[in-house]
């Protein structure tokens, strides 16, 4: 019994990190399959059906079927409902690193194509992903590579490719590249542009298309990161992919996203990794596997650092909202009124498809301030306090199965388990139990019991501990 409980707690941890959380029944089902099998299922979405009726969803939200509008909502629907949770979590991961913003791109079909590209390449070769993002029409427009010409380069994409997408400014106190490398990188990407698109009037937005314009490509000799040749963008990516700094950069991002909050990216040159051993393990796997992201994730999910990292990351607003909706079982099928979800995430500090800059969102403690914390707690408390939500009813029913009368301590303990084995400080636990005890003896077969459970749930999600995943 202890082993099974341990497995479910571990599974809850895995699903919070490799997904957006899960109801207890799913945790039991996955735990019965085993941790290794679940990791493999999550790592291989291409052979596991996502379990969604996307055609029906597209029929209800008619604008989803051709991606002319509603692309953030479509992405959110998949985050909530996809059985392939890691696939969606990785799409969000890349959306926060290889950033573009709809506020500039203003073409949902084009942004949709970018998200689909992340879905296709997000767990493959990092080299291939860098190549695809360099051909991505949304990125080419967002970072002005379409304005970069032979003899008149725009350095924007070349700079961010090195600084924010692959290597970072520096490592172990040393710079990873020079200003000349940035210029040479930009020269290599001249001619990588987008076709003049059909304008959005009068029939709505069209998806942009990548084109390579050989007339505008600089065919001259370039020296980049110590190598010299007539490099094209693809050659530059090949050189980037084999740099130790690239392995470090990707490993730190994966560590910060899945294991424990790292320092913010701009400080990585001077701030060493908090867990050098695990980072080294991931770097080694990067090279051993031929830059394969899935292989790195497999190593990561089996690492001691990950297995022991429960409740060491502050949930992002997207994780908070999607996790809450998955917990209570809302939005399992289309219904009117999706927009508020985006308002909530925005008020908590994360507006998907509109990161604050090309640097993406700052994470960890920076998610939390007085305003965003209040929004976070209010949103979550509203949903877990709603007894009409099927996931809340399920928690009430499971608690009722314990026995006709339960103690306040048992009620707190079991409720935390059903939320995904949350670990509360003793002081918090005692405070919650004391609050529950004020209502008198807890009879599980009364009408009032549901209300007492929902009130306890609301108190738990307002604790400091619940901020963490």
């Amino acid at each position, binding site marked *: 019994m202890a082993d099974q409980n341990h497995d479910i707690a571990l599974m809850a941890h895995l699903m919070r990190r490799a997904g957006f959380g899960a109801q207890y029944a799913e945790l039991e089902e996955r735990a019965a399959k085993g941790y290794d099998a679940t990791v493999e299922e999550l790592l291989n979405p291409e052979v596991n059906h996502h379990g969604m009726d996307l*055609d*029906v969803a597209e*029929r*209800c*939200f*008619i*604008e989803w*079927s*051709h991606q*002319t*509008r*509603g692309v953030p*909502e479509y992405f959110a629907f998949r985050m909530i409902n996809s059985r392939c949770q890691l696939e969606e979590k990785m799409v969000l991961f890349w959306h926060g690193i290889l950033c573009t913003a709809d506020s500039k791109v203003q073409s949902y079909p084009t942004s949709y194509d970018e998200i689909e590209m992340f879905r296709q390449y997000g767990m493959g070769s990092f080299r291939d992903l860098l190549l695809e993002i360099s051909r991505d029409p949304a990125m080419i427009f967002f970072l002005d590579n379409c304005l970069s010409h032979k003899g008149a380069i725009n350095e924007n994409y070349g700079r961010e490719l090195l600084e924010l997408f692959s290597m970072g400014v520096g490592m172990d106190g040393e710079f990873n590249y020079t200003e000349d490398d940035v210029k040479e990188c930009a020269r290599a990407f001249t001619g990588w542009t987008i*076709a*003049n*698109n*059909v*304008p*959005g*009037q*009068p*029939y*709505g937005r*069209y998806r942009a*298309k990548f*084109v390579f314009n050989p007339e505008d490509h600089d065919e001259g000799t370039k020296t980049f990161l110590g190598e010299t040749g007539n490099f094209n963008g693809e050659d530059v990516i090949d050189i980037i992919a084999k740099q130790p700094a690239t392995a470090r950069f990707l490993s730190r991002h994966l560590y910060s996203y899945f294991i424990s909050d790292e320092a913010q990216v701009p400080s990585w040159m001077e701030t060493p990794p908090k867990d050098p051993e695990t980072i080294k393990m991931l770097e080694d796997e990067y090279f051993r596997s031929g830059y394969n992201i899935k292989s790195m994730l497999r190593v990561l999910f089996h690492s001691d650092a990950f297995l022991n990292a429960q409740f060491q990351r502050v949930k992002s607003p997207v994780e908070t909202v999607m996790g809450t909706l998955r917990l209570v079982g809302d939005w399992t099928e289309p*219904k*009117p*009124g*999706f*927009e508020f979800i*985006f308002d909530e995430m925005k008020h908590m500090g994360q507006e998907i498809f509109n990161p604050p800059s090309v640097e993406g969102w700052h994470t960890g403690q920076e998610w939390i301030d007085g305003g965003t914390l209040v929004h976070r707690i209010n949103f979550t408390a509203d949903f877990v306090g709603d007894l009409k939500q099927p996931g809340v009813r399920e928690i009430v029913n499971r608690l009722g199965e314990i026995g006709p009368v339960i103690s306040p301590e048992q009620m707190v303990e079991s409720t935390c388990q059903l939320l995904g084995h949350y670990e509360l400080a003793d002081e918090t636990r005692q405070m919650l139990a004391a609050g529950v005890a004020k209502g008198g003896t807890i009879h599980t077969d009364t009408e009032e019991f549901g209300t007492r459970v929902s009130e306890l749930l609301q108190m738990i999600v307002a604790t400091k501990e619940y901020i963490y995943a």
Partner: protein
Amino acid sequence: MVTATDIAPVTFQYSHVIGRQEVRSGNGFFNPVAITRDGNGLLYVLSRGTETPAFFPCKRVTVFNPDEEEVLAEFGQKIPPEDADETTPNGSFMWPTSVALDSHGYAYVADEWLNRISIYDQERGNWIGMWGIPGDAPGEIDRPAGLAFDKNDNLYMVESRNHRVSVFTKDGKYQFGWGGKGDGDGQFNLPWGIEIDHNGDVYVADWRNDRIQKFAPDGTFLMKFGESGDGEGQFNRPTGVAVDKDGHIFVTDYKNDRVQVFREDGGYVTTMRGQAGLSKWGAERVYLDPTIVQARNRALNLQEREGAFQGPIAVEVDDDGRVFVLETARHRVQVFSKQTAMFAGEL
């Protein structure tokens, strides 16, 4: 001796395009989903609109003349999602799916979220009533989709989530019905569009079964055609069906972005993929802004990209051989004329 052959080729000449993306009202549509025509040749297009942004008042029926391209009337309005329940005000839409006209010209609009049929008078704007009881018992409705009147003003309604066709009087009295979930003859999987031909036979776009089924007016199964795929005679979620006076069957093959044409026995004839240029209403918008004109002049493969169907969702025909294809993703109606060859000469 002069003769004509009944295997003559059929082609479709592009005529013109009507519409533009218009989120509010006036000369355009916004994610239109249904089209029908009245006895005077006026077209009625139902815009389903979108969920977001919430401030777009985009759900409506637009009545217009397809030749002069004049908007003559609009009716219906959007209800905020949080108010879309049994208390929704009369005449409002949440998820409208279809519009049909009875013999007096009254318009009946189905709403698949509210499970109600709203009725508007010939003045095109006055709500005069509604009916519909949610449920799955005979006479109750769940997710009404396509609507079509027969010559006796019986309303044939596709109920997508009950996977059946139900027939009502125009004031909502249940007559009979058929169907059930499945892929056998006479069964459906989330059906959508419906058409009644000149003989009174009924065609249903059996959406998730990727096929068309034909029934006698009493629901007796007559034939079916189609299967999943993107080849000739295959479908990827067919949404709408129309039958002209010659018996040609037009199917909007929604996710394949095409319209397929079939003989009355279900044999494949041809495929239409769209040829739209700049519409009259579109030109009104485009020529307001020189930057759009310049962008259109620069655009790569403008004609090819702009012309192609995107989300053909419903189709209507008239007795003059005209075909009206409604595209939800491009907010417009492409109009075509059927051309049938007449071969002359000695046999």
